[in-house]
């Protein structure tokens, strides 16, 4: 009897130890897998005073062809900022109007990405020149920042080219990045 008890005393911690490290090891493996499947992407939203764009870092899963990845990134941009308002940093403003959907993206042979939005991007836009700049370059800078091989971005509305989004800024041609409008030292974590 004493022998069985002795065996149990030895076995129980051994089994417990095996289980503990197995679970811990399993957790570590799972975590590692998630991290490798996710990417830190940069999304640009407006500062509260609407003076400039501010980068927000968000971790999302990206995979598949470039059109799928760019579509996912724009969908994240449309969701708006998730950065928490703190005492030192105020919330960021989404410069894509409510109700806007992205119909699709397509890369042409010249490295320009065409992004097709629903009509709300134009119809629900507030209309000021600077507000228009913020909207356009939140889209253009988000794409060119996360996909460096894409140098130019063209905005379409329901499959059609538009001269301007709100009457002031030329969107008839693909646009290149504009980092003058970005305040990098105010980066947020989403």
């Amino acid at each position, binding site marked *: 009897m004493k022998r069985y008890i002795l065996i149990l005393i030895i076995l129980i911690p051994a089994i417990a130890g095996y289980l503990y490290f197995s679970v811990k090891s399993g957790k570590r493996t799972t975590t590692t897998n998630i991290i490798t499947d996710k990417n830190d992407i940069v999304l640009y939203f*407006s500062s*509260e*005073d*609407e003076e400039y764009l501010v980068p927000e870092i968000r971790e999302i899963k990206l995979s598949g062809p470039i059109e799928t990845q760019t579509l996912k990134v724009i969908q994240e941009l449309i969701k708006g900022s998730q950065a928490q308002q703190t005492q030192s940093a105020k919330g960021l*403003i*989404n*410069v894509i109007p409510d109700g806007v959907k992205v119909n699709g993206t397509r890369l*042409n*042979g*010249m490295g*320009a990405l065409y992004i097709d939005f629903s009509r709300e991007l134009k119809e629900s836009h*507030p*209309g*000021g*020149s*600077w*507000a228009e*700049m*913020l909207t356009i370059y939140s889209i253009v800078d988000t794409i060119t920042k996360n996909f460096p091989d894409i140098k130019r971005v063209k905005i379409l509305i329901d499959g059609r080219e538009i*001269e*301007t989004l709100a*009457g*002031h*800024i*030329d969107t008839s*041609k*693909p646009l*290149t990045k504009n980092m003058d409008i970005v305040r990098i030292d105010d980066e947020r974590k989403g």
Partner: protein
Amino acid sequence: MLLLFYFNEADSTGLKTIVIDPGHGGSDKGGEGRDGILEKDTVLQISLSLRNKITGKMKLNVVMTRDKDNDVPLEKRASIANESNGDLFMSIHTGSAHSDELSGIWIFHLDYETVRSELGKSDTDDIEGDEKKDLEVILKDMAQSEYVNEGARFSELLQKNLIELIPDQKVGLKPIPISILKDINMPSVLIEIGNITNNKDGKRLKDKEYVNKITDAILNSINDYIMANEGESSENPSSDRDDK
């Protein structure tokens, strides 16, 4: 030499014609205030007041890109301005921000980098014809650079005069690639005289005293611009005038 005495104020600086461009119009209503006030109506009314003030007080011609509530495409506005051989182009708008809480006046002008990058862009993704356009682009680039510098200079005068007359209003100034300004062959600015979506600014835009201050500030800026140019002319007498 005697002819010099007959040059009026505008002639002596080369400033003869001001082009006023009331933004939007017709089916394009522009921004809209919470109380239904429309940008296209507000800017037309203020532009007409400005025209009357300029023609009443200064020896300058004024050309309007529209003087009623009608659709005028951007390219038509540019051709009206360019065909009038205008010397200064002012596009009058109200502003709108993403947040209704923001108020303020904005002055926008082109900067040289913007113009150069825009001129360097291909119209299409077919770049075969680019070399043929080089000369055209370079010549336009040379002409535009002077307009850009003058537009920036006039914008700074506008900011100074607006702050002076409306000290409780934020007056911002930024170089941005405004579509209408890129096709204008003269110094140009776009002024947003208040955020129509903001309650405080919406009320101000209907207030005659506020509108008067806006038009006075613009008038003072034109005067300052003329005087600054006169100063430069007297320091560097124009060969054109000597020839006359």
